[in-house]
């Protein structure tokens, strides 16, 4: 064996995990300060640093998965005893790390071409590098506080990158909208962390107070805590869930994602499809035992996820903006992941594995879809409306065919990545349903309905964009993208199609991930023993099934999603490829359903026009009046009273000396009377 290779295999990359975070940060600084004077006016440092992170990540994977060196966690005390900065290397974080670093690296490569002509390229790359580093930090965090910190940092980068073309008002507005929607969730998430810190402290924990493994060790005692009369863990999980809804665009905080498409497409691909939006899913996965131990928490998670999945996919049907279609499908797919995590109440850690597998698969095909749509924009000088496209397949074959690959994966066409990930999710949702009575069937129902819609809107987009005749002059002569952009497309397409096959239908992945909580984690100081999820579940009133349950499900249920997908595909083909149906019959203002969808169920109207502009602005104006005229008014009133009193009473000083004498004499008399009355007591 090659000595250098053996040398590399002897390195314990887990010890360098913090460099995964630090390298992109350094890249960020270098890009920001000197990036514009380097190769192609920026991008070099970002790409190199992220490549470095990727190498270390896969090194860690090698250590843990191949060499079985075990899970590893290490931390330093931060500003207060028990508040630490730490990194944990376990299957969960590794899965995310490898996915994020790989996709992020590809997208950076793509961006070299895509952002080639942008004048502020170095800023762009600095921000993406900062984003990627923060994402690594979020993934590697071994405690809630650090996770929250990087959670906010990715939010910051999202804000900056959405508003990267700051001179466009809608871009700036979209950035603000994104931050605000997340902030609503984040403040509650922070509150949840504060509660967690408090109850941990109440139970006498002094070291690594809010690091996950420590919390897992104390779940039994924690489950006895009560806040505001409700089990503390439930409150905490609900608050975390609010954070998740914000970051992972769950209903009703999803409204920012469509607007976020104002950013460069690479940003949409990197942040709003592949990585950042998955942070919410990752949080639930990472904190899964807490949710498991908290009564009713997972049910909430499951229902919110399922509803989001269906809700978003209906919206995808009517949008004409290519990027927004994929944005809605992102929301919907995230809904699938969250739902299966909710089903963890029955299937335990398997839920985490499934969710993460779908997350990774989704990351690949969604990044691919976005990059291809980016290439479409690039090639047709920023046409985004699919009604103005058509027949692009001729002009840009690479883009078209790779987009097809992504679309197939998205609709879970057999043997693509999505097929293995999504259909298992739906099965497990059914398993969950069987355990939870009639209401328990709702998530499963939503998911299966989502399948047919997904297939429809995805291929509606693909057919309208790629096939048929060009419907605008811009679409007549599209130009194919250069190799910087082409290469990532191809690589992503390969993974989108083949990920399932590479991982033996996902089983390798699942088995790796299912070790996560149940296996011990080594630390510098000692060892965190693995936890028994069955016990934990009983704390929250859940009881987990044993493995091998899938057998009891009738094949009808198993193959239902496939047939629905075919049906959806058929509808799309009929309507938009063969044009058997005249859609204009349905797509018209009179159609109330269409109206409802077109206006996104009036959610934006509710938030922007009613809440933001009407209610809150009224409050602000009222507040200003209060401040100016009431609180400050009292102050000014006092001075006014003083001065006007003076103005009036100065007239007593008439200047006529007799009056002064009169005053003296009356003063004497008055004083005599007063002294006689009050004195001598």
């Amino acid at each position, binding site marked *: 064996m090659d000595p250098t290779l053996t040398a590399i295999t002897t390195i314990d990359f887990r010890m360098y995990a913090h460099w995964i975070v630090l390298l992109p940060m350094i890249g960020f600084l270098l890009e920001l300060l000197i990036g514009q004077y380097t190769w192609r006016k920026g991008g070099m440092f970002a790409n190199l640093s992220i490549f470095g992170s990727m190498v270390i990540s896969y090194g860690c994977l090698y250590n843990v998965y191949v060499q079985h060196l075990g899970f590893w966690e290490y931390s330093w005390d931060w500003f207060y005893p028990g508040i630490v900065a730490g990194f944990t290397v376990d299957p969960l974080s590794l899965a995310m790390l490898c996915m994020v670093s790989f996709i992020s690296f590809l997208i950076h490569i793509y961006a070299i071409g895509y952002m080639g002509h942008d004048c502020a390229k170095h800023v762009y790359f600095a921000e993406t590098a900062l984003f990627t580093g923060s994402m690594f930090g979020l993934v590697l965090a071994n405690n809630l506080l650090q996770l929250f910190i990087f959670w906010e940092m990715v939010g910051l980068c999202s804000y900056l990158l959405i508003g990267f073309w700051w001179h466009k008002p809608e871009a700036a507005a979209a950035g603000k909208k994104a931050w605000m929607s997340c902030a609503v969730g984040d403040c509650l998430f922070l509150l949840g962390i504060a509660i967690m810190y408090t109850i941990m402290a109440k139970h006498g924990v002094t070291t690594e107070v809010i690091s996950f493994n420590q919390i897992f060790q104390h779940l039994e005692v924690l489950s006895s805590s009560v806040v505001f009369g409700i089990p503390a863990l439930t409150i905490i999980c609900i608050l975390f869930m609010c954070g998740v809804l914000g970051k992972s665009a769950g209903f009703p905080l999803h409204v920012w994602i469509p607007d976020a498409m104002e950013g460069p497409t690479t940003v949409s691909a990197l942040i709003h499809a592949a990585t950042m939006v998955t942070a919410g899913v990752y949080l639930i996965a990472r904190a899964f035992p807490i949710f498991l131990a908290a009564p009713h928490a997972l049910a909430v998670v499951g229902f919110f996820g399922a509803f989001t999945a269906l809700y978003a996919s209906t919206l995808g049907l009517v949008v004409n903006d290519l990027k927004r279609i994929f944005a809605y499908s992102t929301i919907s797919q995230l809904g699938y992941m969250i739902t299966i995590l909710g089903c963890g109440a029955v299937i335990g850690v398997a839920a985490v594995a499934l969710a993460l597998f779908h997350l990774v698969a989704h990351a690949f095909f969604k990044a691919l879809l976005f990059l291809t749509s980016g290439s479409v924009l690039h090639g047709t000088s920023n046409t985004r409306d699919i009604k103005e496209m058509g027949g692009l397949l001729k002009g840009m074959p690479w883009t078209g065919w790779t987009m097809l690959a992504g679309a197939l994966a998205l609709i879970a066409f057999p043997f693509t990545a999505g097929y293995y990930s999504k259909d298992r999710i739906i099965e497990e949702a059914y398993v969950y349903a069987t355990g939870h009575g009639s209401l328990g069937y709702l998530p499963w129902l939503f998911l299966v309905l989502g399948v047919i819609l997904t297939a429809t809107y995805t291929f509606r987009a693909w057919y309208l964009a790629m096939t048929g005749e060009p419907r605008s002059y811009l679409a007549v002569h599209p130009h194919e993208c250069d190799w910087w952009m082409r290469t990532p497309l191809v690589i992503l397409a390969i993974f989108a199609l083949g990920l399932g096959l590479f991982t033996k239908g996902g089983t390798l992945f699942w088995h790796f991930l299912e070790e996560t909580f149940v296996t011990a984690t080594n630390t510098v100081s000692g060892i965190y023993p693995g936890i028994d999820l069955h016990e934990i579940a009983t704390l929250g009133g859940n009881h987990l099934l044993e493995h091998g349950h899938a057998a009891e499900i009738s094949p009808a249920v198993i193959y239902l999603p496939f047939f629905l997908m075919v049906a959806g595909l058929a509808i799309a083909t009929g309507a938009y490829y063969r044009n058997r149906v005249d859609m204009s019959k349905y797509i018209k203002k009179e159609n109330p359903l269409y109206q409802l969808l077109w206006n996104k169920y009036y959610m934006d109207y509710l938030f922007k026009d009613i809440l933001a502009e009407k209610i809150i602005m009224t409050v602000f104006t009222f507040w200003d009046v209060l401040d100016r005229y009431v609180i400050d008014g009292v102050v000014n009133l006092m001075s006014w009273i003083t001065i006007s009193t003076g103005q009036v*009473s100065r007239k007593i*000083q008439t200047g006529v000396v007799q009056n002064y004498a009169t005053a*003296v004499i009356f003063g004497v008399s008055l004083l005599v009377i*007063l002294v006689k009355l009050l*004195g*001598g007591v």
Partner: protein
Amino acid sequence: MTGYTPLLPEGILIGVAALVILVGLFIEKKKILGYFTLIGLLASLGLTISSWNITTAYTGAPFYGAIVVDPFAQIFNMMFLFVGILVCIAALDAYGDHKNQDEFYALMLLAIVGMMTVALSKDLVALFIGFELASISTYAMAGFDKHDPKSIEAAMKYFLIGGLSSSLMVFGMSYLYGLTGSTNIDTIAAVFAENTALIGTPAILLAMVMLIAGFGFKMAFVPFHMWAPDTYEGAPSIVSSLLAAGSKKMGFAAAFRVFIIGLIAMKLDWYIAFVILAVVTMTVGNVLAVVQKSVKRMLAYSSVAHAGYIAIVFAIVAYPYASADATGLAVAGGILHAFSHAIGKAGAFIAVGAVTYMLMSKNAVDGDPNHIDNYDGLGRRAPLTALLMTIMLLSLAGIPPTFGFTSKWYLFLSAIKGGLLWLAVICVLNSALSVYYYAKVIMRMYWGEPKGDAFIEPPMYLFAMTIAVIALIALFFVPDGVYYWADAAAHALLGV
């Protein structure tokens, strides 16, 4: 110490006054007399300070115990002399080429002698004589600019109200004499002590109130204050400073002696009177000062307000629940505040005089030279005057680092020590309000737009103000010496 040597300061002044008058008849260049007066005052001040803690009571011939020299008298004499020196220095510029300036110096010396006599006297007769001596001299001084209608009117009002109140005072004294059979304050106190039936009889109350009115005229208590703003505004500025800083404090000296020694037995009666007067006086003074447009008149009202602050001393001394050290601190604080107010107010009036002088020298006056508009941009037209005046106003407002702050600290501390929280609250709120009108002047001086080019600042005025400011700042940093003096005075007064 025996003999009359403790009275040497007063003697010197009388001698100097006589000499000034006589020499003034013969020489032409009379400014030299001003310096002569100054030397006399300095010598007298030196003697007073050097013998600050002697105690000599003149029993037997020839004063029949009417005169006593004790730290209380000495500290007030020191105040009067200090003010006199400031006024005299300023007068060297103000009346340096006036043809009757010798009369001014003489009158001023006699006025100061009168004030000192009041501080020294322990007998109603002597007190009355000193009182009148000071009053009559200052009547004449108030009208010294006899071509200025305002000055005449000021003199007239001062004279009429002064005459009225002195007759009130004598009337009250006559009843006091009649009912106690003596004019000696100690004897009066003794009589009251043994014959408690007298206390609270209508006649005594009448006498007491008339005395309050008589002294209150000098101290400018509301409602006996109404002459003060007019006179202070109309009289020549340096005379106003003598009135506000000197003869006002004379009133306090008299009131301290008569009430805290003579009528201490009926303190429950004058407690009410003085509490009412104090609150009304400080409030009226401040509220009316806020709306003044003439700086001089504003200063007049502010000295009314300060009289109100000092008047709380009587309230604290008379307050039944006040402990002994509280009363001691109260009197000491009152004396200290009188002192700080004397310096600050004298300096401030001299500053006003300086401004008037500068405006006159440019004859750039339209209407009232004391109007606030003339102070716009003074910080650039006359930087030194503005700076010194600012510091003196800060001292009057009670803002560090000035002696005015320290004295207020002592005074209000004594109010809390005496347990009169509500009175202290009224005081501090008033003093916070007073900051408003002092700050107004400072604002106009420093960020108003100058109406004209720079002035030549009169050196002697500057010299006087500089002395005052140095005193104010130095006494902030080392108040201990003067505090111990005031403390000794308080003990001499309270006899504890």
